């Protein structure tokens, strides 16, 4: 039993400090502190809090408090209570604060002063992790702290050994437990999990005798879980808690309706992030063995619950196959061809049914699922290839329903949507590609000190890459269906929605438009009311943060804004309204941020009018004009109105190689190609089959869906030239939009990689000026914290490198052909991001201890070296992310070229220098059009081996010669391009100059 004598003395000190902090500088206040446990009131001598009038209240007796409040002579009143006084109407004037402050800085300050100890940042982080992951009562935390101090400092052994006070397994370790470990210990301390896991271990005779009257079995039979936590160390029982998975994400982005989202969507995520050494097959075997154990299942709700199975699934599949066979038999084919087709189809059926149990492992057990699905996926793809490559079969099947029925095998079609289950070969291929990525991460694991960090970054990137899907469109019965990307990896099936329904497929949300809205407010400081129209947003993620930023602007003296009204126009109106209702409380009801909803474009139109391209577009444009004219800022988030209707076009590039690969199609080779080159042939196969189902054409075909609608762009230009105060933001997944409309004036542009897609953000406004890059300055700096947060949603990633750091600022330079990275650690608590970015208050490098320096160096060298040089889909994805973010920090042509060079994988010399002049002009950049164009020019020449007439004409179609000249001039001085790029660019320039 721990001894907590004198704890009330410390609590009294705490109260004094806390109240002083809360009331500092105020002459008059009515303050209530709530959530104080009963035990603290017993011996509390409130007379020692004589600076204020203090009284203890509860719901039954609060008359004294009312009397104090009514006495106008009393200016400083403090109420102490357990339940709080919010429900007491007569005390509503009091401001209430919990005894455990939400402001962590305030908490650490009070605790360190009360117990007269210095709190290291690593200890604060450790306790923050606990507070973030578990409901901790103030008394528990206070006692825990009290019990963990020895000789005037926090004792790490005690800090770990006393965790049972917080209802968490205690640990024998004498070091700060890492974030992953303490999180797992918290999860496995839940009484239901302790009970079920330990009971299971006992019944399976796996538990070694931990003896005595306090044996685990005795305590379990008494239901005394707390005693188990007090008696045993985590290290003693850890083996019994393997594969315990948390079912929901921690509260990040909890304003959206992501309750079904799981922390570990797959076994690989679990293995990697929990750093489990066991083979993936062993982990999955255990999961699959426990799958039918109701008690275990109930405790952590494994992801396979998302994957629905019904008894008639196989029956339906067999019916579909029989129907398909019948259809094939009715086609006028030679016996040989008929047999070939039917044999392949039979193989698909056989392999699928033979592996049904393995398929039921679902992508939660990704290894097992992929292993078992490979056979029928291969057979299915071979069948598709047979149809495509055999001229006779192809021609005979054109005009029949065979091809479409084959594509729709396993799928369900109803109410304007097609559901493709996760075991459809295309979906299975998607999961197999994900598995390949995870296998690569597993293979590259090492034992270095930053292994977890490397893994975390790669897993985050894998999750983003996994948001893509190999195919996008499916045409059936004359209707075109498009993948709803919000369903990929989410609900056990991928939904293709009828294009006519207008239902969203966008993965864009409020996070990506936050900068644009705030920028508009900043550019229009005198506006009091701003109307923002948002078209076709996918969900409301990020809305809370945006609302909070708007509120900050509204209370700032710099801006007049007092109300921002969002008019959200989407075919998903109902879903968005529901999401908003769930988060309204958090957004606040102060009327600063308001919402209106509507559907636009889709509600009043008949299918026929929408089918008619021209008529539909005219109507849409008229409506768009009205929307734009009504709003100050209009945001089009990859809206279909930006593009012409999708159409099937002949593929011009690489057809022979595609054909050769499909002649001997091999799923593993396709996966390898996807992994190594971010490319595979499945999309061509899928789209072309849809085409040849209707037309007797040869070659490869694909859906072209992002051709910019010039009428829409003209309308936007017209509106902004008529009214320079208006701004229109276009978010587009068309990679070439910038070059396609680069002659348009008044555009600012950014490029972002967002949820797996490259998004161009174009801001049209009469107030926009052209930002020209400088010709000198081969340096750029960036905040690691912001980069990882914005690019991969990894918060505070820098703390895995340096736990005490608030941020790390890296400055990249090149000198004598060698990359230099100057690493500055920001540790001052009081700095906000902007201050940090200005480069003030950088820690002296001498303060970094050897191990930290080593870790930091290792991470930088890995990121810019081995990781980028791996040249696979993950490293390439990160390169693109980084490039987009770094462009926003690059203010000169050499800096942009430096970014390009850095992303090719380089040896980097790391220095920890405090003397670097950080010339950070700003952090919220809204235009890097020139940088993006330079990137596109370099991308263009990378595809060329030599300069020919076609190269010149293509260059002229997309780019401007003046920018090319600036790049060449810059490279003559700085030599940042590689020799091939330089040669091709010069070749083009010489030809362009002649013209």
């Amino acid at each position, binding site marked *: 039993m721990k001894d907590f004598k004198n704890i009330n003395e410390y609590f009294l000190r705490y109260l004094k400090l806390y109240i002083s902090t809360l009331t500092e500088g105020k002459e008059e206040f009515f303050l209530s502190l709530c959530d104080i446990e009963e035990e603290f009131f017993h011996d509390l001598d409130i007379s020692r809090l004589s600076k204020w009038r203090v009284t203890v209240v509860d719901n039954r007796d609060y008359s004294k408090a009312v009397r104090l409040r009514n006495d106008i002579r009393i200016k400083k009143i403090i109420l102490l209570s357990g339940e709080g006084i919010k429900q007491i109407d007569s005390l509503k004037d009091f401001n209430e604060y919990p005894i455990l402050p939400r402001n962590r800085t305030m908490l650490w300050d009070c605790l360190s002063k009360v117990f007269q100890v210095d709190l290291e940042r690593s200890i604060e982080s450790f306790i923050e992790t606990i507070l973030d992951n578990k409901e901790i009562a103030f008394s528990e935390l206070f006692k825990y702290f009290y019990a963990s101090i020895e000789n005037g400092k926090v004792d790490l052994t005690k800090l770990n050994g006393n965790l049972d006070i917080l209802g968490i397994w205690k640990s024998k370790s004498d070091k700060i437990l890492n974030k992953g470990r303490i999180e797992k210990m918290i999860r496995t301390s839940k009484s239901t999990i302790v009970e079920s896991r330990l009971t299971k271990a006992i019944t399976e005779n796996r538990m070694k005798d931990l003896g005595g009257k306090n044996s685990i079995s005795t305590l379990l039979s008494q239901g005394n879980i707390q005693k188990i936590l007090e008696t045993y160390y985590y290290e003693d029982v850890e083996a019994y808690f393997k594969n315990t998975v948390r079912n929901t994400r921690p509260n990040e982005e909890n304003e959206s309706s992501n309750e079904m989202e799981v922390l570990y969507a797959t076994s690989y995520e679990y293995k990697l992030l929990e750093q489990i050494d066991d083979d993936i097959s062993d982990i999955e075997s255990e999961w699959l063995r426990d799958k039918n154990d109701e008690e275990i299942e109930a405790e952590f709700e494994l992801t396979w619950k998302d994957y629905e199975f019904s008894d008639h699934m196989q029956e339906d599949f067999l019916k579909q196959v029989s129907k398909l066979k019948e259809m094939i038999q009715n086609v006028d084919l030679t016996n040989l061809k008929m047999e070939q087709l039917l044999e392949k189809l039979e193989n698909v059926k056989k392999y699928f049914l033979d592996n049904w149990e393995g398929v039921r492992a679902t992508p939660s057990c990704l290894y097992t699922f992929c292993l078992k699905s490979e056979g029928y996926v291969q057979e299915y793809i071979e069948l598709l290839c047979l149809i495509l490559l055999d001229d006779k079969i192809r021609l005979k099947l054109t005009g029949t329903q065979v091809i479409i029925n084959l594509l729709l095998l396993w799928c369900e079609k109803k109410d304007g949507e097609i559901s493709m289950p996760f075991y459809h070969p295309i979906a299975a291929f998607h999961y197999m590609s994900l598995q390949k990525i995870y296998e690569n991460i597993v293979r590259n694991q090492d034992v270095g000190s930053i292994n977890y960090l490397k893994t975390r970054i790669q897993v985050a990137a894998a999750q983003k890459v996994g948001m893509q899907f190999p195919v996008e469109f499916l045409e059936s019965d004359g209707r075109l269906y498009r993948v709803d990307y919000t369903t990929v990896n989410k609900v056990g099936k991928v939904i293709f929605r009828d294009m006519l329904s207008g239902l969203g497929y966008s993965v864009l949300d409020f996070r990506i438009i936050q900068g644009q809205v705030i920028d508009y407010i900043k550019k229009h400081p005198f506006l009091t009311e701003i109307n923002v129209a948002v078209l076709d947003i996918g969900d409301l993620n990020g809305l809370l943060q945006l609302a909070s930023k708007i509120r900050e602007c509204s209370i700032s003296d710099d801006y007049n804004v007092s109300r921002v009204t969002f008019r959200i126009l989407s075919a998903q109106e109902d879903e968005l309204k529901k999401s908003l209702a769930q988060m309204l409380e958090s957004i606040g009801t102060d009327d600063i941020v308001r919402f209106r909803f509507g559907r636009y474009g889709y509600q009043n139109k008949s299918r026929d009018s929408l089918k008619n391209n021209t008529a539909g577009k005219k109507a849409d444009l008229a409506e768009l004009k009205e929307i734009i004219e009504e709003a100050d800022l209009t945001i089009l988030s990859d809206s279909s109105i930006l593009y012409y209707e999708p159409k099937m076009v002949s593929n011009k590039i690489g057809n*022979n*190689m595609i*054909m050769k690969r499909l002649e001997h199609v091999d799923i593993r080779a396709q996966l390898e190609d996807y992994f190594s*080159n971010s490319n595979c042939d499945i999309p061509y196969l899928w789209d072309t089959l849809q085409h040849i189902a209707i037309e007797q054409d040869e070659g490869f075909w694909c859906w072209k869906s992002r051709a910019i609608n010039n009428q829409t762009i003209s309308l936007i230009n017209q509106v902004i030239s008529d009214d320079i105060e208006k701004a229109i933001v276009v978010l587009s997944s068309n990679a070439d939009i910038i070059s396609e409309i680069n002659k348009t004036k008044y555009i600012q542009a950014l490029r972002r990689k967002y949820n797996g897609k490259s998004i161009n953000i174009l801001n049209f406004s009469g107030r926009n000026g052209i930002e020209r890059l400088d010709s000198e300055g081969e340096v750029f700096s960036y905040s690691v914290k912001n980069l990882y947060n914005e690019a991969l949603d990894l918060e505070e990633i820098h703390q895995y490198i340096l736990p005490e750091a608030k941020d790390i600022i890296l400055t990249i330079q090149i000198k004598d052909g060698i990359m230099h990275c100057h690493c500055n650690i920001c540790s001052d608590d009081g700095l906000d991001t902007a201050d940090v970015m200005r480069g003030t208050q950088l820690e002296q490098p001498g303060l970094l201890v050897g191990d930290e320096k080593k870790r930091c160096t290792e991470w930088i060298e890995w990121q810019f070296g081995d990781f980028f040089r791996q040249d696979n889909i993950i490293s390439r994805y990160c390169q693109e992310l980084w490039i987009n973010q770094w462009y926003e920090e690059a203010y000169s042509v050499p800096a942009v070229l430096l970014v390009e060079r850095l992303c090719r994988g380089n040896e980097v010399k790391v220095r920890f220098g405090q003397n670097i002049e950080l010339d950070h002009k700003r952090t919220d950049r809204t235009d890097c059009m020139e940088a993006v164009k330079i990137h596109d020019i370099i991308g263009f020449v990378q595809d060329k*081996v030599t300069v*020919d*007439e*076609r190269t010149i004409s293509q260059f002229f179609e997309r780019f401007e010669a003046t920018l090319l000249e600036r790049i060449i001039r810059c490279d003559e001085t700085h030599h940042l391009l590689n020799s091939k790029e330089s040669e091709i660019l010069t070749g083009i320039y010489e030809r362009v100059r002649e013209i």
Partner: protein
Amino acid sequence: MSGSNVTSKNSKIIFINSFKGGAGKTTLALTHCIDSLFNEKKEYENIVYMDLDILGTGTCYLFDEKKMPIEKCFNYTQKPVSIELQLQRQQYTLYVAYLNPRLKNHSAYGIDQFMYHQEVAAEILRNDVLNFIKLEIERASNSLFVLDCAPGFSEFEQKLLKDCYTLALDRKVGILEEYVTTLDEGHVRKCIQCLNDSCRSFSVSEKHRTMRLILNDVQNYAKHLNSKGIEVEQKWKDISKEIKKELINRSIELYIWRYSESIAMQSTFLDKVKIENQIDDYMFTRNNFYII
């Protein structure tokens, strides 16, 4: 795809000829090279394209001209130049032996070397080619040589082919002869006649030769047939039957080489695409090159 005397050898010489210009010899020869270069099987470690068309268009115009200056042409150096070819992320080297395009019309060796006599010049060139092939085979036993000849089956070509067969006797070299024609009536008839003449007069017996007649569908006749609803395969079979009826050497295999819009477009004046930028067009597939 190849005859029996080809597959057993490690190295191969493909002899590409036609009996009229514009049949697509150079494109076919380059397709053999590039297809082999990027073939997953990687049968050959050394692939050499040899432009022996002393009358025809200059190969160097097809590639980046800077890499093929006059001073590096085969008739001066007896060596090929290396050209790096890249497709997606794969990069390989093709060796190209080319003749001086400006001097072709004079003779293979031109006036600079005071060899006005074309026969002597051709003799020297033939020896140089043979020596080069021998040395290359010694260096890399699995080499592929694709010889892009001048149209017609001139004495130069005949002698060279005979030399190659001699080479094949004592070395592990397979010889494949490919003769290209378009579907043009006159072209096909001339081709049949010349092939028959060649079989009668050429000193190597037809049973030792692997010969192919390549029907190059430059007119995109297949598309035309398709649009008319005529079965293309049957049409090819009919054509093949008729041609074979007239050929003395019944073992000649007939191949269809399908039209490629991309290749047709890439040499367009003022919109020219260099081969290096358009590698994918130079690939055989089951659908663009097949035996009838």
